């Protein structure tokens, strides 16, 4: 982990009419970090992340991702990031290989590189037998791993994961985080939102959003000390109790 800043948000705000979904959020993420973006449902995590991915325009404030301004240079932002959504969406009626080829093409990877990377990836994940399997036939845990691999397939410098482990059992979640660690070791900055507090422990640093604001920011160890908690769950509970917006 270096000191190079790859994501920088300053007073980032998103309003929908009179409702402020994201309220002047400020933070920085360093290259190679695993940054956990925590908060209860409805706290504003997804809204904030969408702005960082160039999917939505900020109402106020600014942010840069990989050096590009998310408001004005979002096309560039998109080229340099990977994204995995909540539904870990892959094309169900395409095969594993077809999905990879498609996204390789979309991100402008040359054909032979795509071919090589597919072989490499399938071997790493142990998916060789599933090359020609339709995604809809894969078990959920495999889909999840595939979706993540797809998100980093084009070797972006930052990958955004939006609640990537929803609906998956703890063992599979643990395995998934192994993949995240591996990516971080390879220099990819990981920005992950989650509402599972145990996953917060796996991150280098976390922020906790409450009612659209960031009410805590630091490493898990720091926050546990700050809020006198034994686990991240305690920290979160202490903060979330004050929340006005809920599920």
């Amino acid at each position, binding site marked *: 982990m270096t000191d190079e800043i790859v994501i920088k948000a300053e007073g980032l705000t998103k309003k929908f009419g009179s409702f402020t979904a994201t309220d002047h959020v400020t933070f920085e993420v360093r290259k190679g970090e695993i940054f956990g973006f925590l908060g209860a449902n409805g706290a504003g995590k997804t809204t904030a992340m969408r702005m960082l*991915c*160039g*999917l*939505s*325009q900020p109402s106020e404030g600014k942010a840069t991702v990989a050096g590009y301004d998310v408001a004005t240079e979002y*096309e560039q932002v*998109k*080229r340099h*990031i990977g*994204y995995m*959504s*909540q*539904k870990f*969406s*892959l*094309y*169900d009626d395409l095969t594993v290989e077809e999905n990879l080829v498609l*996204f390789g093409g*979309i*991100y*402008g990877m040359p054909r032979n590189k795509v071919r090589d990377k597919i072989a490499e990836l399938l071997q790493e994940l142990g998916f060789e037998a599933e090359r020609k399997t339709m995604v809809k036939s894969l078990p959920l845990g495999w889909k999840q791993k595939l979706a993540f691999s797809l998100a980093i397939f084009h070797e972006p410098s930052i990958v*955004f994961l939006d609640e990537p482990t929803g609906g998956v059992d703890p063992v599979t979640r643990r395995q998934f985080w192994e993949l995240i660690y591996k990516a971080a070791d390879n220099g990819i900055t990981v920005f992950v939102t989650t509402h599972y507090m145990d996953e917060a422990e796996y991150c280098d640093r976390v922020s906790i959003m409450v009612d659209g604001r960031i009410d805590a920011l630091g490493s898990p160890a720091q926050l546990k000390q700050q809020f006198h908690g034994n686990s991240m769950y305690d920290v979160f509970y202490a903060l979330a109790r004050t929340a006005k917006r809920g599920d």
Partner: protein
Amino acid sequence: MKQFLSFVRKEFIHILRDPRSLLILLVMPQIMVLLPGYVIKNEVKDIRVAVLDQSRDIYTEQLTQRLYANEYFIGKGEVRTEEEAAELFKKGEIDLVVVFGPEFANRIIHSQDASVQLLADGSEPNQASVRVAYAQQVVAGFQKELAQQMAQTGTGQPFNIRVNSRMLYNPQQRSEVNFVPGVVGMVILLICCMMTSIAIVREREMGTMEILLASPLPSIDIVLAKLVPYMIISLIDMATILCLSYFVMNVPMSGSLMVYVITAVIYIFTSLMLGLLISTVVNTQLAAMLISLLLIVPTIYLSGMVFAVESMPIAAQIASNIVPAKWFISASRKIMVEGVSMEYVATEIRALAIEGLVFMLLAWRFFKTRLA
């Protein structure tokens, strides 16, 4: 029993809380009754008639006046030649031409056969035969009165006005000639409008739309990639239908195939844009399908594919101008049956293009905000 009833109650709640099912269950049946009852009038009126007078004598003058005065007819003046008449038919300005043979009055006076020929636009067989029948009645009425008059004044000698009719375009009055343009219009609507809107919404429903939006792929490419396959498929379908019609059912393609294809491509564009517009206002594939299917009802009734638009109340006629299929069917009938060239379908092409652009602009306005 109580168990059962509480479940029935639950089912009612589902229905009542879903505005779309309510629309279909309660509103659609009313429309299905009103449309045929109010809009579909099989009576033929406002027949635009022109006269080709080869005699120009007192009797033809009188008969012409009678025709014009008759409530079913609208007099549109004289034509000098059959070519002129054909031209007016092609432009869609007249429905019937009454041709008075030479020496009309003379022949009547000398107890010979005078001839009247009725030329009708056969591309709509039902309408044509009724128009001819009405005209025949007027002639018969004239003949009867004239005979009575002659009997009274004692100048009478029996005479006969021979009426024969000819259908221009589609002389055998085959219904499939009428039918094929409508089918093509419907097929293109279904494929381009319904399938396109479903395809776009499916992406959104599956969640992959978000992934695409977060990628460097420009959103215009996403949309175009959805439209292109359906455009190609509908062209293929159109080609196969035309081949079947031409070779198997002997439906004519009297006009230029090129003109037809150009018109079809513009209609396809309009339908695709409509599909795109629908996709921006719904969230589920089911809703997209329902709206598209709902559009089929006005298309069948108001497009002229089955029921004649000219016979409908004014309100319905105005409404039919919004239905894209109406313009396409009108144009394709003119091209296929009457064999007109491009200028004659300029109105239709223009209407389709304008509608397409309007749909496109509306879709554009809603699209960006929807996806983001």
